[in-house]
Structure formats: structure tokens, C-alpha cells
């Protein structure tokens, strides 16, 4: 056998050790610096939490695979370094081994696909709304692929329209708001996402994934926030020079607060329309 670690090998071993330690330290630092460092944001809604869980399963599985590859790679580089007089065995393959890792790799991705499909309904299908029926809410089938929420519960359906460079929200009762969306807590909110000019993408990280808006298409998503709070988001599809400032915000408030906000909005809109009508008459 002879000594495994000779001059240059020892140097390399040290370098790799330092590199590995630095990487590990970096990872730990990053992980403690913010809980958001190693997995996507997830707020108080099931679809976001589901995605986070699926991500973590895939992430830990990936760590195992990366660890295996790195392990074999670095071990080979230490253990099988050239030595005078040693000749490498001239192996050209091993059918059993190759079949083995082909099946192994296939199994990993099959398991991942399986888990994804098992978790999919929970992520994609709206939950039943926990709140008592909202006065203005319409129970409507979310089109395309997203099934309607379970019968008997009434979700709040909001139309989200993206345009350069602002988000507009149309509530079922005639209320409208821009950039900041106000929704009641514990209510299933179904979003119909549309675009007026170019492609945009609706994304509030803590409330689930992003959904592109394309002019001519309606996309669907939903969330049901179980806690109040404000959740920041933004347009995630490049939409022009103002793309970076096309932010969005969802504020989850109590049921009472929501109702009073909607009333105020309605009154303000009615007043504005009245004013507009008066002005139009004036000019006629």
C-alpha cells in the first residue's frame, strides 16, 4: 500500500478540507442568517406550505446525491493518485453496476414524481372557505384546470389585472384597488389573473407560487391565509423598463375590517363617478 498521503497529496487534502469547511461554514451561516436561505418563503396558506414541503423533500434528496458524487470524486482523487510503478486496472465497464445505477437514478426521479402527484391536489385545488358566507361573494367555478372549491362554501373571487407597471384588483362588489390587495382572513381567495398589455407574472412568495398573465388568457390560482399580515410580492415576468418597480402587496385583515374597507371603497367610487357625471354634464 505505502503511505497514502505524500507531499502534494497532503497539500491537496488540506486545500480540499479548507474548501469543504468554508462551504459548510457558509451554508450554516446562511441557514442561521435567515430561515429563508435554504427554502422558498412560505406564509400562512396551505399551497405555499405544500410547495415548501415538496421543495425540502427534493432538496434533502439532492443533498444525498450531491454528497455521494462529491464523496466518490474526492475519495478517488485522494486514494487513486498516480504512484510510480502502479498501473490502473484496465476496466472498460460493468454491466451489473451500470444497470444498477440506471435503475437507482430512475427510482429517485420516480419517487419525486410520485410525491409531487400525491401532494398536487392539496396545492392546486382551493380549500373550502372557513369564513361565513360573504355577502358579495360569488361561488364560481375557476376555469381551465383549477377545480371549484368544495360545494357550499363561498370563496372570494378577485380579478387581478397586470399592466405596465401596476397591478389592478377588481373585487366582486365593484370595489377596485391598485398595487395593494385587501382580503379577509380565513377565506379562500380565488384569483383570475389577466394581462392588459404584455406578459406579467403574479407572485406573492409567502402566499404560493407565481402565475403568468398573458394577454388573451386567464390564469388561475388561490390562497387561504389563516393569519393576518401584509405579504410583499412583485411582477416576476420581465415586462419592460419598469418591471423592477411593479410590486404588489396583499394585506390580510379581519372579516369586519374587510367589510368596512369594501364599503368605503364603494362609497368613494360612487362619489367619484357622481363627480365625473356632473363634470360631463357641465361640458356638454
Amino acid at each position: 500500500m505505502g503511505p497514502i498521503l505524500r507531499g502534494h497529496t497532503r497539500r491537496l487534502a488540506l486545500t480540499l478540507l479548507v474548501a469543504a469547511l468554508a462551504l459548510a461554514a457558509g451554508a450554516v451561516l446562511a441557514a442561521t442568517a435567515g430561515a429563508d436561505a435554504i427554502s422558498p418563503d412560505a406564509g400562512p396558506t396551505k399551497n405555499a406550505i405544500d410547495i415548501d414541503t415538496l421543495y425540502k423533500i427534493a432538496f434533502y434528496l439532492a443533498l444525498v446525491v450531491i454528497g455521494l458524487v462529491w464523496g466518490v470524486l474526492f475519495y478517488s482523487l485522494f486514494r487513486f493518485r498516480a504512484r510510480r510503478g502502479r498501473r490502473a486496472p484496465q476496466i472498460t465497464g460493468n454491466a451489473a453496476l451500470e444497470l444498477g445505477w440506471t435503475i437507482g437514478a430512475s427510482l429517485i426521479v420516480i419517487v419525486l414524481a410520485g410525491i409531487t402527484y400525491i401532494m398536487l391536489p392539496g396545492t392546486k385545488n382551493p380549500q373550502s372557505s372557513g369564513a361565513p358566507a360573504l355577502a358579495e361573494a360569488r361561488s364560481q367555478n375557476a376555469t381551465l384546470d383549477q377545480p371549484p372549491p368544495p360545494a357550499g362554501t363561498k370563496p372570494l373571487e378577485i380579478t387581478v389585472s397586470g399592466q405596465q407597471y401596476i397591478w389592478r384588483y377588481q373585487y366582486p362588489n365593484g370595489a377596485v384597488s391598485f398595487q395593494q390587495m385587501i382580503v379577509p382572513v380565513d377565506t379562500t381567495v380565488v384569483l383570475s389573473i389577466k394581462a392588459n398589455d404584455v406578459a406579467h407574472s403574479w407572485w406573492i412568495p409567502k402566499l404560493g407560487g407565481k402565475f403568468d398573465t398573458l394577454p388573451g388568457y386567464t390564469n388561475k390560482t388561490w390562497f387561504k391565509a389563516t393569519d393576518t399580515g401584509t405579504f410583499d410580492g412583485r411582477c416576476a415576468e420581465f415586462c419592460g423598463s419598469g418591471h423592477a418597480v411593479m410590486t404588489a402587496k396583499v394585506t390580510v385583515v379581519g372579516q369586519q375590517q374587510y367589510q368596512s374597507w369594501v364599503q368605503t371603497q364603494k362609497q368613494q367610487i360612487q362619489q367619484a363617478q357622481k363627480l365625473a357625471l356632473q363634470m360631463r354634464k357641465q361640458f356638454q
Partner: protein
Amino acid sequence: MATSEYTALRPQPAAGPSAAEIFVGELPRRRAGWIDWVTTTDHKKIGILYLFTTAFFFLLGGVEALLMRIQLGAPDNTFLDPVTYNQLFTLHGTTMIFMVVVPIAAGFANYLVPLMIGARDMAFPRLNMLSWWLLVFGGVTLYTSIFFSPPDAGWTSYAPLSNATFLPGHGIDAWILSLHLVGLSSILGAINFIVTIHNMRAPGMSLSRMPLFVWTILVYAYMIILAISSLAATLAMLLVDRNFHGTFFDPTQGGSPLLWQHLFWFMGHPEVYIMALPAFGMVSEIVPVFSRKPIFGYRAIVIATAGIAFLGMLVWAHHMFSTPLTTPVLGFFMLSSLAIAVPTGIKIFNWLATLWRGNIELRVPLLFVCGFIAQFVIGGATGVMLALFPVDWQLTDTYFVVAHMHYVLFGGALFAIFGGLYYWFPKMSGRMLSEGLGKLSFWIMVIGFNLTFLPQHSAGMSGMARRVYEYGDTGSLHAYNLASTIGSFILAMGILVTIANVFWSLRRGRRASPDPWQGNTLEWFTTSPPPAHNFDVIPTVRSLEPMKDIRRRVLEQEQPAVEAEPVAEPVG
């Protein structure tokens, strides 16, 4: 036929009247240096032209990246205005993908494929030169637009943003025409590679004895023909929409912006493998040479290469998981994307198995290749995570994707290409690159690369979208981005060390023998650099590793006469 005797077989410049008679009328007239270069039809010179051209574009793209990193080094920075920033990332992506990674493979392939298969040139030498000129003109077309209005719709130019209604400047038109030229260059090059590889192999070199780099170039060429001709049609449609009242992608006239995404990614994803496969081929050449062991599972690697290409044509909509598609469509593209991890994994395992129990000489080419394996596996793993479409809903269009694709294309493909540069530079120039500078460059690049791109995963998961010129100072975004910016400059220094190494070694490098690494393939049979006609005698190929056979035969012949005739050190 011995390598050591080889110099004696080279045509001598002034070997007397008889030699002159042979060559008169056969060799083209020698012209002044630069005219000779820009009119050459020698595949080796064209290969070198490709490499210098792509290196130039690589520096341009790199400077664009550094400017963007300066802007993103601090939250709410005002170093660049939004429009300039958008132009920069458009130019960066377009340059790096279409003018660096794809043609750099064509550069290596131009130089190496005829040598590796024992041919005297490519099948269509003049077409070959045209390919290079089209690449140059494509680059000029893109970059002259910076004096007018550079394109600013991203390298994907999504409709309807890329329509004339929203971006009336002619930057997008320059972008379209540039990609037409570069695409035509790639297609013509691909036809040339296919014809050369199928028809001009040395006697005895059956497909099952063909070097793996040549295999990947063959598959790369077929993929280019399928994908890039589709791109040409797609670009023509956008050109019509923008300039001649077309409505292919205009939703107000019944067109579909989703169609653009389908058509673009039908090219866009195969493009990723067009960039990655030649790099895989380089790895498959370098690993066995420096392990002193045959490649493990040659047949499996060939099948995996073809498998990746086949599946690579079927995964395009995984770039569109967040668009309005139905679940069965999402499911199909998730499964095909996951399936592609299997042949890719097979390749990685085969390379590891080649290293296993080898007699490993960790020279700079292998060092870069090991960097490739270690970093590419991270890019592969994040690729699998992104293939799960619910996960993709969170991560797509964020810095997580930016990090993923740089781990695949930079930490992966480009590291392998740097390994290829250190490996084949002696053959191309007749001089060795400095090992010391190579190692220095490698370690600086590894540190810089990982410092740049590892934190970008976290930035993406903390809500940082792609293609934004500024971000708010929330959470750890500033820390991640500052690390990235510092890392990008370290990475740039590492690259500069290799560039310095190239220019230093061209003049001062140690002279290279014909076969400095004890290689396996036929390019090492001829001198370094090879003569214009490549080989005086084309050997018959009897195995996958013809140079091993030749060295063995030389050794057998020399054994009896060992005292009489000492082996002369060949001069390059």
C-alpha cells in the same frame, strides 16, 4: 509510424527540387499573414479563429455581467438606469448563449474532429469558413445596435413585449437579424460536422470506435439542425409581426403570445444541451487520459448522449410551468424533464467510475474537469427540483433559476471547456500552458464562481425576481447580492489569469511534444501543431484508443534495438 520518428515524415520546407515539384499546384499560394487567416479553409485555422472570436465575445459578455453586478451590489442602486440594465442583460444572455458557448464548441470541434477521426480537413472547407464569417457578422450586427438602440427584451424576447407596439426601437430587429446570421452559421457548421463525421473517418474507425468527443459533436450537430432551424422560423415570424403587420403573436389580432413561448423554448431547451453535450464530450476525453484507465461504459455514455438529445427535444414547456397550461401538460413536461436526469446521472457515474482505481494525474485539465463534475452535479440537482412544477411555481423567474443555469452552463460547461483549453492548447500551439498559472486560475475561478452563484439560490428563494435592476433592502437580499458581486470580480480575475497564461505561454511556454499527455485519440499522433494536411500517414484504427495501440507497437519495435537507437525527443 512511430510518434518519435514522426518529425522525419513531415514535408521539409526546402527539401530540393523533387519535393517542390510534388507540391506545386497542389498547395494554395501563401499570402500575407492576416489575409491568409481570414481566407483560410484549413479547419485548424478556422477552429482557432472561432476560439479567439468566442473568447472576445466571452469578454464582452463578461464585462456586461460585471456592470450588472455593480448595479446589484447595493439595494436601490443608481449606477445604471433601468433601460441600460435591461439592454445589458439582453446582450449578456444573447452573447453568452449564441456567440460563446455554442460556437466555442464549434471552435474546438473544428480543430479536433478531423484530427480525431484521422481526416485531412472538414468535408466542406469553404462552407466552414463561411460559418465563421457568419458568426462574425452576426456579432457585428448585434453589437452595432449599441450605437442606436440595443435590444432590451431579454434573450427570450417574449411576445408581446417584443412587439413593435411596446418596443418600437430597432434593437429587437437587430437582435433578430443577428440571431439569423449566427443561427445560419451554426446550421452550416452542423451540416459540415455531420457529413465529415459520417464519411471521413480513418480506416477501421467504426462508430463504436469513435472518440466520445466526436460522438457528442455528432449529436450536437443533429440537435442544432432541429432546434436552430426552428428558431430561424420563429424569428422570421417575429420580424414579420414587428415590421410587416403580422399578427402571429399579437393577442389583439387573434395571435398568441403563448405560441412565441412554445416556439422559442422548442429551440431554447435543446440549446442547453447543444451547449452542454460538447462539454460532456471533453470530459469523456480528459478523464480517461489522466486516470490512465479506459473510459468506463463507453457504450452507455454514447446511448446516454443520444438519450439526452432525444429527451432534450421534449422538455421545452418546463420553462412555461407558470403559464396557463393544464395539469396533464405540466405533468408530461415534468416527467420528461425528470427522465433526462437519468442519462445525465449515468454519465456522471461513468466518469466517477473511470476515476475509480485509476492512476490519477491531477494536471490542470483534469482539475477543471473535476470542478465541472462537482459544480455540474449541483446544477443538475437544482434542475431536478425545478422540474417539479409546484416547486417551479415558486422558483421560476427568480435568482434561483439564474443560479441553476449558471451552475449548468458556467460551473458545468465552461469549466469543462477551460479543461479542454488546457488539454488541447499544446496541440494547437505547440506549447504547454503553465501548470502553476492554470492551478491558480482554477482555484480563483472556483472560489469566485461559487461565491457569485451559490448565494443567488437564496436570493431567489427570498423573493428576488430575475431581470430587475434594483431591489429593496429587505431580509438578507443585500448580503446575498453583495457576496455575488464580490464573487463575480474574483471570478473575472480567475479568468484573466488563464487569458494571461495563454498569451504568456504562446511566447514562452514549454514546447510540447506531439503527445504530451499520453493521449488516447488520433490528434496526438501528429505533430504539435499539426501540419496543414494533418497526417502524412493515416493509421488504421483497431480500437477505441488508437494512440495506446500505436505507443505499444512503438515500444515493441524499439525493445530489441534499444541500445542501438535511443528514442529521440521529438520537436514540435
